[in-house]
């Protein structure tokens, strides 16, 4: 038996024993997502146990180095683990910006001390991270940010504000872009710093979205002390770290649209809601949009698969992540537009009614942000035009 095969069997056995039954069911609401953190609210003991068990093997981050608590698996073993988790419909043990965003940047740019300090708590879900990038006057033009970190010898004092901090009011620590040199050209005076959000001078204010939820905050800094050893990468070279991390974010956002899309066939919903006429959807005007959507969903899935295979074969993804971010989010928005059309009058109710407290219309409204957050669709198209197609400008 090959090493991979035996790993599969071991993993299967371990999961059978260690993944609680309730962690093998679909989420019932957003509350079921486990974000960890100092103030983690576990919805059940089994949720806590599942996190602890997975973290103990480093499987919250299967491919990260074992020396920092990661799983230490290579791609092929990680794929086996993913397959086995998927086979039993296991919920993710932990969702975390520490995993999806900060971790890879720390592993690439952080000092040994910073890795030792921050990575193990990320693996174990003990610290919840928040991202401090956008500012009210620095949206698509991120590098024009103005939050400033003044040098006070062994530390900085940070003043300014950030906007669009995901779950900023629930974060323990923040990774944050600050201007450390106000004389330099805009991309060159930025540093990437880490600090505890419990530090005096940090405050947050939730932003109410059109969907009725407040997943983001504004975050304000009033003379916030940041230690100098908490700079990731070189001082004034934070833009390099940020770009690396943005690429990761784009991939995540692009793919999230897809995996959701894969969860239910929109044509099945349409047939159930609208009915057939001689084997053809009753409202034939919708058929064409539905067929195009379904084809594009498969095409995107295949393209993600192809990109993974190419990366495996040694290619680098690079600016192509902009393509996934662009198309994945636009596709998800098309999907929700069609779901609203199919939903008909039921889809109009905001609370109560036929559609589970307005879940569909609220999700639909939320998707309108997909093509804005993490770099607008226009920014992605610019990146494709310049970096891939080589157009000037």
């Amino acid at each position: 038996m090959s090493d991979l095969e035996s790993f599969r069997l071991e993993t299967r056995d371990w999961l059978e024993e260690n993944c609680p039954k309730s962690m093998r069911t679909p989420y019932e609401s957003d509350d079921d997502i486990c974000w960890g953190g100092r103030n983690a609210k576990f919805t059940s003991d089994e949720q806590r146990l599942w996190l602890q068990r997975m973290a103990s093997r480093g499987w919250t981050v299967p491919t990260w180095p074992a020396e920092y608590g990661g799983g230490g698996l290579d791609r092929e073993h990680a794929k086996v683990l993913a397959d086995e988790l998927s086979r039993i419909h296991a919920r993710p043990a932990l969702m975390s910006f520490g995993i999806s965003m900060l971790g890879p940047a720390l592993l690439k740019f952080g000092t040994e001390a910073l890795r030792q300090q921050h990575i193990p708590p990320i693996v174990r879900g003990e610290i919840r991270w928040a991202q401090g990038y956008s500012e009210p006057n620095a949206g698509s033009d991120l590098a024009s940010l103005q939050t400033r970190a003044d040098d006070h010898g062994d530390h900085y004092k940070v003043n300014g504000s950030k906007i669009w901090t995901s779950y900023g009011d629930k974060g323990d620590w923040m990774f944050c872009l600050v201007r450390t040199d106000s004389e330099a050209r805009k991309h060159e005076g930025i540093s990437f710093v880490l600090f505890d959000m419990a530090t005096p001078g940090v405050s947050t204010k939730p932003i109410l979205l059109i969907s009725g939820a407040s997943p983001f905050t504004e975050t304000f800094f009033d003379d916030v002390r940041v230690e100098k050893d908490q700079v990731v990468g070189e001082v004034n070279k934070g833009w390099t770290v940020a770009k690396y991390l943005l690429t990761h974010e784009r991939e995540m956002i692009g793919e999230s649209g897809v995996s959701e899309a894969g969860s239910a066939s929109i044509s099945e919903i349409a047939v159930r809601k609208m009915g057939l006429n001689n084997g053809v959807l009753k409202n034939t005007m919708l058929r064409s949009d539905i067929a195009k959507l379904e084809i594009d969903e498969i095409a995107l899935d295949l393209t993600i698969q192809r990109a993974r295979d190419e990366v495996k074969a040694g290619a680098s993804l690079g600016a192509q992540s902009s393509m996934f971010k662009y198309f994945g989010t636009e596709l998800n928005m098309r999907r929700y537009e069609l779901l609203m059309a199919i939903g008909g009058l039921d889809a109009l109710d905001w609370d109560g009614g036929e559609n589970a407290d307005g879940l569909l219309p609220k999700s639909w409204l939320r998707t309108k942000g997909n093509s804005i957050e993490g770099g607008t669709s226009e920014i992605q198209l610019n990146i494709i035009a310049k970096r891939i197609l080589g157009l000037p400008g």
Partner: protein
Amino acid sequence: MALVLNEEQVMLRDAARDFLTARAPVEHLRSLRDAGNSVGYSSELWAEIVDMGWAAIVVAEEHGGLGYGFAGIGLLLEESGRTLTPTPLLSSSMVAAALITRHGSDDQKATYLPALASGEHLLALAVDEGTQHDPTSCNTVAVEAAGNYSLNGSKVAVVDGGFANTFIVAARKSDESTGLFLVSANATGVKVDTVSHLDTHKAATVLFADVEVSAAAELAMPDGLEFMLDVARIGQAAELLGIAQEVLERTMTYLKDRKQFGVAIGVFQGLAHRAANLYTEIELCKSVVLHALRELDAGTEDIAAIASMAKAKLAETAHLAATEGIQMHGGMGMTDECEIGFFLKRCQIVEALYGDRYFHLDRYAKLSGY
């Protein structure tokens, strides 16, 4: 008739814009929502609107109205679309007035038209029953007994249903035809539940359990249902036109003000070309709406294709405007604080009620023989 507004109409439009902008801007809708208003509209505001005569515009002079026609009420709805002001103008002052004028008996006219014109009596259309708008399917039944009818069934998405005095109810009769009945909201057996729509307006689910209705409460013409819906659809098209224009104007202002990369973002062709295309689509929409209202005023017999064309075109364009409005406002557009999102929400509701763009494209094609 020329496809331009005459002087009187321009004055009406300007007056409406002044009033609504001052007294009932988008902030008015927000405050109704935040105050938890249970019916979704302000009766104080309605009283002021009635004072200006807007409720009387469609009703003929002989019935106490102004006989000012559809072009006039269309302008009011268009302006209401710009401010997202919730009023009973569409259901009562436009549709009910048109329906009773055209299909009502003398008694019905005498009863309802003056009351509509004075804004004291409000009517609501009780048509839809299931999840899809489908006027050909009606499970509410009107059973004849001793010269009267007994109504049983339920209706959903009844606009203004929470405060209307009378429902215009579509019900299937024993000969399988669908009749329209004027049913008092106070009649025994009528039960009204209001629901919040996503645009923060309210609608109602209405149950009819053994509701007794006199034969005199039936509207005479059997094709009244389609006529009534088509008038409503043209009114919706006018409202969508207001929404589309307002969103375009606000978004253009934002593109001129918002700076990124050291310039106003309107300088970027990627946005400017989309804006110019949207402008063009809206110009087409203006003509479509004006034309449809003129045809109503002219008493054109067959307005089905005109109404479906107007609804399909306006739904598509207003939706494009509303989504482009959010996208071009960037992160701000996603916040509840920025008003642009209210337009998308309202747009979705107006689109969906009485048939969305898919429904009307389908209907238009069928009416055109394909």
